[in-house]
């Protein structure tokens, strides 16, 4: 099992080399997508390699000449990587205004990075607005045409349907892995699981599917000893990859992580795109799907806090750890409402703030240990 897991870890340990290597090997141009909702399937069907942009693990330096320090880690990091030419293997980017900070990335990147292709599309947050669907379809068609112009090829309905099938297959297998973790807590460490999902965002989906097909039977068969640790669920992070060292610390302090609602998790692989309808419409409908809750989407009928409580109850969790990305506007506004609801339900919660420059891990260890002890651990 370790060998099979290592293949995923190899991809995420150094995403720059992994993506560059895949590009050279596959002969596909690489398109970076700003997370979270640009449909990768359209880029894939255009014969390109879509990857979700990631946060580097280097200090932000040159980028601060172009982006102010009080932006989120991902925005700062993408700009910093760009001006340092660490992204020179990326042939294009597709951006949208996930938030107020991501909204201004196109200007900064266009002005400072030599990038052959940069497209800006609109992804609606108004998932309950009856006018949104047609406009979303219009925007996805514009993206398709723009990619056709870039590649000189045609994105046919058939190729899109094939891509949707490939992506649905990937989503189904990732969902199964999450189910297995629920069935057999401790089957995978949170950091391993994050690596499995994150690698899907960095690889050609067909290749990731092959890795999952190798791994899944091993996970299905694996017998688990009785679980140990205080059961907790994780939430937050918005569009960022959860920091691996933080996940490791949480588990080292005695937490048994049984579920999460991360973007590098269920929000990435939830909801298949329909395979029996016009593909662009299917992809628009997937964007407009209201679950799982995302703090960037408008949905008056649900409260994220209640979803977290449900997630904890269903998984028999004793507490929740919320990873709050510093300077993330959607989280900054939503978190107080989440906290109010969680407190009212007497669900113990530990909030950990994430910034690019790492928080004190020693201090986190102490807090995590105290949290575990306070909710019944040893």
């Amino acid at each position, binding site marked *: 099992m370790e060998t099979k897991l290592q293949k995923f870890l190899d991809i995420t340990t150094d995403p720059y080399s992994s993506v560059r290597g895949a590009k050279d090997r596959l002969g596909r141009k690489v398109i970076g997508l700003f997370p979270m909702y640009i449909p990768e399937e359209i880029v894939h069907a255009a014969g390109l390699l879509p990857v979700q942009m990631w946060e580097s693990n280097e200090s932000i330096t040159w980028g601060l*000449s*172009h*982006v*102010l320090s*009080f*932006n989120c880690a991902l925005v700062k990091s993408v700009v910093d990587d760009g001006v340092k030419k660490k992204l020179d293997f990326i042939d294009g980017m597709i951006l949208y*205004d996930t*938030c*107020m*900070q991501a*909204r*201004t*990335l*196109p*200007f*900064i990147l266009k*002005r*400072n990075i030599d990038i052959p292709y940069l497209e*800006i599309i*609109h992804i*609606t*947050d*108004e998932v*309950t*607005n*009856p*006018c*949104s669907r047609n*406009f979303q379809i*219009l925007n996805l068609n514009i993206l398709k045409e723009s990619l056709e112009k870039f590649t000189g090829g045609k994105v046919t309905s058939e190729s899109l349907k094939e891509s949707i099938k490939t992506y649905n297959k990937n989503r189904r297998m990732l969902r199964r892995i999450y189910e297995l973790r629920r069935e057999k807590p401790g089957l995978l460490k949170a950091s391993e699981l994050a690596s499995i999902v994150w690698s899907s965002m960095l690889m050609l989906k067909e290749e990731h599917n092959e890795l999952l097909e190798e791994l899944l039977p091993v996970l299905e068969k694996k017998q688990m000893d009785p679980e140990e640790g205080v059961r907790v669920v994780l939430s937050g992070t918005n569009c960022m990859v959860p920091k691996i060292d933080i996940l490791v610390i949480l588990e080292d302090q005695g937490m048994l992580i049984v579920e999460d609602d991360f973007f590098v998790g269920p929000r990435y692989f939830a909801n298949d795109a329909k395979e029996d309808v016009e593909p662009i419409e299917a992809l628009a409908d997937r964007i407009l799907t209201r679950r799982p809750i995302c*703090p*960037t989407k*408008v949905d*008056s009928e649900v*409260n994220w806090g209640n979803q977290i409580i449900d997630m904890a109850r269903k998984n028999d969790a004793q507490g929740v750890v919320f990873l*709050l990305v*510093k*300077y993330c*506007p*959607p989280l*900054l*506004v*939503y*978190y*107080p*409402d989440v*906290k*109010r609801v969680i407190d009212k339900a007497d669900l113990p919660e530990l909030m950990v703030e994430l910034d690019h420059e790492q928080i004190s891990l020693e201090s986190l260890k102490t807090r995590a240990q105290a949290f575990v002890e306070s909710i019944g651990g040893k």
Partner: protein
Amino acid sequence: MMTVNQNEAAKINRLETTKLIGPMVDKHWEDLRLAKSRGQQNVWVAGTFYLLTSSQDIPTHFMAGFASYAAGRRVGHIYFKAAEEDYQLQDSCSYHRCHMGMLGLIRKGLPLPENTWIPLPDFTILSRICKEQAHYLESLDRQFGVPMIALDVPRPYSSEHIERNVPYVEEQLREVAIPSIEKLTGKPYNMDKLKEALVLLKKTALVRNDCIDLMKNVPAPGTIFDMCVSLAPIMYLAGKPGTLEYHESLKAELEDRVAKGIAAIPGEKYRLYWDHIMMWGWLGQLSRKLASYRANIVAARYPYGMHEHAERIDPDRPLWSIADQWAGGVYDLPEMALPVISKWTEEYRLDGLLMLSSPTCRLFNGGQLDIVDEINRKYGVPGIIFEGDMVDPHFYSEAQLDTRLQALFELIDGSRYEKSASIRS
């Protein structure tokens, strides 16, 4: 080297007309505060679609307007403290925290600052010109169950985007906003009243734009602070009695000053551009500080971007007009702002850029560093960025601003010296 002693008494020729705005604004917020006791509904708006309900004689709250009002009335700190005690995080939008603090006090039944509060709304209208403002009304829905009308207003990165976005926004106004307002008020929507309000807004905004044009005169007859406090008549007071008269009076006073050569800042030495929303809590302090250097801010994308193209308003196409004014314009995105700031650098004969960067308001921050760089490269006009906030004192350091202002003026002086030296040689 600085030639002006900052301790020297600041000389500012204040306008008479701007003294009229206080009572107009006070009445607006009083009408809102008393709406419920008068048996009226009241509506809160995040974004800019206040005309939809204010034209129907429904007291309508404009988020930015109330936060700046509270800061101006020196009660902001009460609300920020209450917000922190009610789970709010300090890095979130200060306008948001101002409102959440007030609502926290209301929820807990605690005392509110006299005459500077407003009751919970009957419904809200949100758009995503600023996404954080939209999030705040979503929170109102989650916390208090206040119904919201959510509109998607994509920001334009180019004129092509505007062409695409305006029909989409218009469609939402027609298909979502108007039917929802009818449902929530229980009354048919009176489109004629909206048209009337637009007729008055257009006239008022055109006169206001003439006022802005007068700021191109050297010396300028007014200051950016005059222009900012005169914003309400074309924003949340739009279409209300007295708004056109206000701006006609302002224009006449500015024209008179131009004719007589009267400067707002006697001996005007530096003509500056201001970036970002105004620091409402420090209007007096900031204007005196700049005047002590004989510096005058004569241009700014906020507020000049608001209804800059009022001539496009067509009252016979009311929903299209509203969509068109707000789906474009504003210049919040740097792509759209840079060409305008470039144009203004020449038209207003700018000497420098003064860029407020607010850690809690992300509407105008993005790209500021590159804008400063571009204007400096293209026109030799330097700029500085300083941290502050519209209303929250926690994020403003006067010492930092002083240091940066001195640096800016030294850069400008140095550049002038070099130019004169090259002419002499």
